[in-house]
């Protein structure tokens, strides 16, 4: 079991952190989130190009870096901490699903790796297959009510109601996308309706592949949550060292200090859980399901609680739009329910533990 970053992983972290600190500080995030697309395409292009992050887990034979989920977790922790807007997580999810398919799709994977294709994964959508042609085509009908970065997608990679994986061009006939309002202003979502839209079947009836994809996404989101948690905690720790009330720094009050200590305890455990789950993703497939469910159960709650308490401990300033506390709070809440209501993760963990 590996719970400590390697030298290479630490270097990756520093590279991504350094890039985001200059290319996408929170001031830039605010500009981006008010823009039409909700993110800065130039930042995204550099992330894919210069840093090669969209291809991080894509096998080398398809033009990717062939890295593991431990490395992906390191990157997502940083994009999470930076509240990076744009389709990085969505495209990564698509890459995960594609790499788990029995026959990886070269075109899509290389398109993602090269950063010229935004693919968005639509998990457990309930969208039905209306008709399936023998030529590897399928016609979809139904609605996916919440698709992250759905408006940014070139290709929608749909997990259908009967467990097939179908790639549909978002520009195809029969695909209607509608931008949604989101609680979290740093991540857009869309409702997508398929009304006889034709797509290409990537895989069919591959329950193991879909289950593993679901677990890997749980780990990926948990890594992002770890970043959000850490950033929200860092913010209030820093503030408590400069803000004065009653002639004392607020961090000197036990009312603040003891809460921050408890938040730090959550961080330590959260990081341990994410590292373990990412390790299991790479090296211990049998341990992955429980590790992934644990990661979602723990991180969803811990990240929201820390983001909430960080906001509250800021006092009134934390309630303003101009302060960043609410951005962490909203991302934390949105992430907590991203993969379904939290109780679903607890129920899955109970099943896996044979309770």
């Amino acid at each position: 079991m590996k719970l400590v970053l390697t030298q290479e992983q630490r270097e990756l972290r520093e590279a991504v952190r350094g890039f985001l600190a200059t290319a996408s500080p929170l001031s830039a995030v605010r500009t981006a989130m008010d823009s039409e697309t909700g993110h800065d395409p130039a930042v995204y292009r550099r992330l894919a190009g210069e840093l090669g992050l969209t291809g991080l887990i894509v096998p080398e034979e398809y033009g990717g870096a062939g890295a593991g989920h431990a490395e992906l977790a390191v990157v997502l922790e940083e994009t999470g901490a930076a509240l990076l807007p744009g389709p990085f997580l969505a495209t990564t999810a698509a890459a995960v699903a594609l790499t788990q398919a029995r026959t990886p799709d070269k075109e899509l994977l290389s398109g993602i790796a090269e950063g010229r294709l935004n693919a968005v994964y639509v998990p457990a959508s309930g969208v039905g297959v209306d008709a399936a042609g023998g030529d590897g085509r399928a016609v979809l009908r139904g609605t996916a009510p919440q698709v992250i970065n759905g408006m940014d997608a070139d290709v929608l990679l749909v997990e259908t109601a009967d467990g097939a994986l179908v790639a549909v061009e978002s520009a195809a006939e029969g695909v209607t996308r509608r931008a949604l309002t989101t609680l979290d202003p740093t991540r857009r979502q869309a409702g997508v309706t398929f009304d006889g839209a034709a797509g290409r079947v990537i895989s069919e009836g591959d329950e193991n592949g879909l289950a593993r994809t679901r677990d890997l996404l749980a780990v990926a989101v948990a890594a992002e949550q770890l970043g959000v948690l850490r950033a929200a905690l860092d913010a209030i720790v820093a503030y408590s060292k400069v803000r004065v009330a009653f002639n004392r720094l607020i961090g000197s009050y036990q009312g603040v200090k003891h809460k921050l200590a408890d938040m730090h305890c959550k961080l330590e455990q959260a990081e341990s859980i994410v590292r373990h789950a990412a390790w299991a993703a790479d090296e211990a497939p049998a341990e992955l399901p429980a590790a992934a469910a644990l990661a979602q159960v723990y991180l969803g709650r811990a990240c929201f609680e820390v983001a909430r308490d960080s906001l509250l401990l800021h006092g009134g300033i934390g309630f303003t739009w101009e302060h960043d506390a609410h951005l962490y709070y909203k991302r934390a809440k949105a992430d907590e329910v991203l993969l379904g209501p939290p109780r679903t993760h607890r129920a899955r963990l109970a099943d896996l533990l044979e309770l």
Partner: protein
Amino acid sequence: MDLDEYRRGARSWLAENAPDTRAEGAPDAGGVAAAKEFMVKLYDAGYSGITWPREWGGQGLTQAEDRAFAAEAQDFALPTYVFSIGLGMCGPTLVDLGTDEQRRRYIRPLLRGEEIWCQLFSEPGAGSDVAALQTRAVPTDGGWVVDGQKVWTSVAHHADLGLLLARTDVDVPKHKGLTMFIVDMHAPGVTVRPLRDMSGRAHFNEIFFDGVHIPAENVVGKVGDGWSCAVTTLLHERLSISSGVGMGGQKDNPAAFEALRAAHAGPGGATDPLVRDQLVELYVRSRALALFNQRLAQETKAGIFPGARGSAAKLLLAELTLFQADLATSLAGPEAVAYPGEGDGGESAGVRLANTIAMAPGMALGGGTNEIMRNIVGERVLNLPPEPRTDKNVPFKDLRTSGDASAADGRLA
């Protein structure tokens, strides 16, 4: 009159006269006009200023009637939001501390909604520690000149008058150099700028004072006595929050027990046992606080003044507000955070849930943070010893401010 009878009278008046609109938050100009019309009717029916002295325009009744009316009013959505600061804080302060002339001049128009009030205490560097405020009032011919900045000011953009706390002496300890004033919000030099809260809406304002003149007769209480005046105001604030004045009722709250019960459970009881148990938890917490509030009301009627125990109710309300918004969104899942917008499918459940979670921290921050409430409960209800203080006997000008390098070490000795 028997309290039940009073309650029934209030209920029937409300049923006839309460407007049929949801009026949460700050209204637009048209809304303010309608609210003012309603307020006149409310006053003329005897339901504005229920506990206030008859002499100055109130009804001279007890807290019991007041709470009875508030309890009935919870089921309606009264458009009293813009008057809540005046009714809950400024007015009661003037009743307690104003001169007779001030009371004559201001109370009745306040109760009838003819003049809207705001409260001007907090500053960017003075939140929980209100007495650290920096806004200066300097004596001048026939009055004072005020310069500085206030923040968190509800309804200031509609306000005609404000209750201002400013520093009139920097050479004495911070609590001793303050004075309270009535300020004309239409006076030259007053700038009101909306301040967006975390939900993206402008529920609050920043106010800038740039050489604003205040006549001498607008001092409330004595010069230099502003802190004890402010304590009176803040006491009224806590009471008004805990008694439900200025709070939206639970009726339209999509995170309240009944709403979540309707959304996630039902008479069939065939729901997920874990959801059931979370709804039990919400019921327990809601009911525990409701019964505590009712007990405080009954004690008040019996002549037992709740005092600082109101801060316990306020703290519990803040925690319940966070808990239920969190629970509601967790139960709903993805649809609580991404939904068709208001212009794009009307007011969906998602819009309302998202608004609830986005506003939930407000109750824990406005009117004193949870930490301040715990200090109050600890020190004034349980009589625990106070925190050591280093700011009480030092001239204001020698105190630390946020970001000040000398504050980087909390050590006293």
